[in-house]
């Protein structure tokens, strides 16, 4: 398998065995009464990393963030920040700041006063506070709004004030709880890139909680997928997408086709799987650990080719079916192809030509095919 490292920059301290983690969750468990929010979780985050905790609501991601901020204490386990055990340190003495999902801007204070609040707590000299506030206002482009109250600002502006307030103290770590959740789609996309630039320019460590996979994929260096208080996988966005560790991760991020089957034989790195439909699946670059048993072959829709004509004899991984549903989205077309055994395979094709000669429509007979290295074999 080719490298699936960080695409954006050659920043990968997690791959360096000598690198020391900046934040370490060590066997963290958090219970609220009978409910276990976080279950024996361990996780390392490195300095200057943009780290995303991704999961559905109730997966424990916010609890994890609140434990880092100090609003909750772990039931067991410990959290280390830069080598320091955080147990017993109250939120107001932790070198982390949080941007709240509701923004939590103080309604009785102006934008300036909101941003200056944390600096005043630190007893910073007045002149220096004014300087820092001006710098922050410039950073989030809100210079003209300094004297406004939060209720006089738009949602996007409020979000920027919250951001400015939380980075004003130059925390070691910035925690962001669903930072873009309250913004509309267009603004959210713009802000994603602004957040990334900000993180790069300030050189801070960001830990962001989100339920929006696109947001996590766009911004984060690494993503931890959480489910029921446990880590499912920690990896770069590309790894999460192209090499999910389990059926859950594959299904959680993006769309996936899971073809269940049984391993027939293994020859070097090449695996033959007998699919549930009877079709044979040839897989290259299979993980070393898999040589028998029930497995799932996971393949993304864009890696499946749909054609009205049967590919040449001897081509591996060809299945016949009929077009069950299709959706024309402009830039691409999504096909739902029903195979002989009734399973529906999703495939998508980029509409790179304005007029295609291979027009497929409902109930057409079609052949789906994919390359032997287009998907991954999952045992979990």
């Amino acid at each position, binding site marked *: 398998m080719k490298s699936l490292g960080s695409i954006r920059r050659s920043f990968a301290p997690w791959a360096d065995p000598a690198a020391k983690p900046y934040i370490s969750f060590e066997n963290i468990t958090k219970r609220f009464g009978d409910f276990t929010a976080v279950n024996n979780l361990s996780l390392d985050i490195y300095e200057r990393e943009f780290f995303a905790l991704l999961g559905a609501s109730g997966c424990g991601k916010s609890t994890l963030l609140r434990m880092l901020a100090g*609003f909750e204490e772990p039931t067991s386990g410990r959290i280390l920040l830069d080598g320091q055990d955080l147990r017993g340190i109250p*939120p107001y003495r932790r070198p982390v*700041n*949080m941007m709240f999902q*509701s923004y*939590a801007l103080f309604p009785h204070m102006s934008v300036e006063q909101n941003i200056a*609040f944390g600096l005043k707590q630190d007893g910073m000299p007045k002149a220096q506070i004014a300087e820092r506030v001006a710098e922050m206002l410039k950073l989030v482009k809100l210079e003209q709004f300094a004297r406004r*109250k939060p209720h006089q600002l738009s949602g996007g502006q409020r979000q920027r004030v919250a951001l400015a*307030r939380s980075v004003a103290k130059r925390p070691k770590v910035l925690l962001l709880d669903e930072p873009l959740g309250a913004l509309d789609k267009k603004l959210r996309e713009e802000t994603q890139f602004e957040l990334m630039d900000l993180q790069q320019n300030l050189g801070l460590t960001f830990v962001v909680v989100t339920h929006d996979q696109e947001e996590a994929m766009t911004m984060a260096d690494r993503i931890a997928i959480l489910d029921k208080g446990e880590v499912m996988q920690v990896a770069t966005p590309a790894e999460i997408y192209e090499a999910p560790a389990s059926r859950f991760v594959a299904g959680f991020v993006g769309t996936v086709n899971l073809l269940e089957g049984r391993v027939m034989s293994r020859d070097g790195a090449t695996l033959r799987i007998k699919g549930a439909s009877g079709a044979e699946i040839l897989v290259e670059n299979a993980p070393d650990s898999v040589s028998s048993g029930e497995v799932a072959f996971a393949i993304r829709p864009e890696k499946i080719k749909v054609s009205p004509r049967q590919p040449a004899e001897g081509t591996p991984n060809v299945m016949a079916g009929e077009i069950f549903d299709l959706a024309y989205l402009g830039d691409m077309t999504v096909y739902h192809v029903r195979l002989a055994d009734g399973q529906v395979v999703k495939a998508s094709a980029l509409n790179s030509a304005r007029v295609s000669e291979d027009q497929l429509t409902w109930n057409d007979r079609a052949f789906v095919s994919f390359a032997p290295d287009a998907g991954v074999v999952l045992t979990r």
Partner: protein
Amino acid sequence: MAQSMASDRPDAAPAVSSGGLGKAVGNRLVIIVPYLWLFVFFLVPFLIVFKISLSTTAIAMPPYVPVFGLEDGLSGLIASLGELTLDNYLWLTDDALYFNAYISSITIAAVSTLITLAVGFPIAYGMARAPTSLRPTLLMLVILPFWTSFLIRVYAWIGILKPEGLLNQFLIWTGAIDSPLLILNTNTAIYIGIVYSYLPFMVLPLYSALEKMDYSLVEAAQDLGCPPASAFWKITFPLALPGVVAGSMLVFIPAMGEFVIPDLLGGSQTLMIGKTLWNEFFNNRDWPVSSAVAVILLLLLVVPIMLFQQAQARSLEKGR
């Protein structure tokens, strides 16, 4: 006068049915009702009291002159207007009793308001932070004392506070004191009575202000380096201020004119304007002077409220 105003309503009513114009009139009618109420039951009685305060005592029925009437014609009415005098107000400034009673009332009302605030705030805060399922019960418990008559509740305090009362018996039983404390018939008893009686009026507006507050604001303050006590004064208290003001007014205003509590729990030497008013009215049968006392009391209460509201409106305008 009240009669003639009341008869306006049926006259205006038919206009409601006539289309768009009718709707506008209908809207106005809705606003007129509370205004009419205030006019009939507040402004008219106040004007009557004000007129009496300008009259002179007389051994008659009613016990003052002049009595306005139309039996002498319009000229008689105008002539009786000339008999009105500011003497009663001058009399109030002459006798230090009234001044002292006002000052004492303001002091007792202000101190009671502060104590009620100090007692009520933690209660309201606790209620606002309680689990949502528990809040209706807590709210109910705050309102529960209203099920019993105010007068009976104040009488009950006599049984608790008197020298051989429940409180003293309990304290002697625990060994905290040897001889009974003298609480009844002192200002302490008045404070206890006022704080007890008016606590719900403080708790309810505070609760409604605190319940609306987003607790993540306090977390945000702590996150930015603010210890809990400081976060309370910088975030929670300023945001609860509308509730503090409303609750304080609801306690201060009635406490200022309170009569039952000082009469039942306070000593004979207790000076409060409500008691002075009662004495003037019933014991001295001096309606004009007691009316003047009442008018001054009203001004003392209304003027600060108006100034406050003006300031609030101005700060609201500035905020927008």
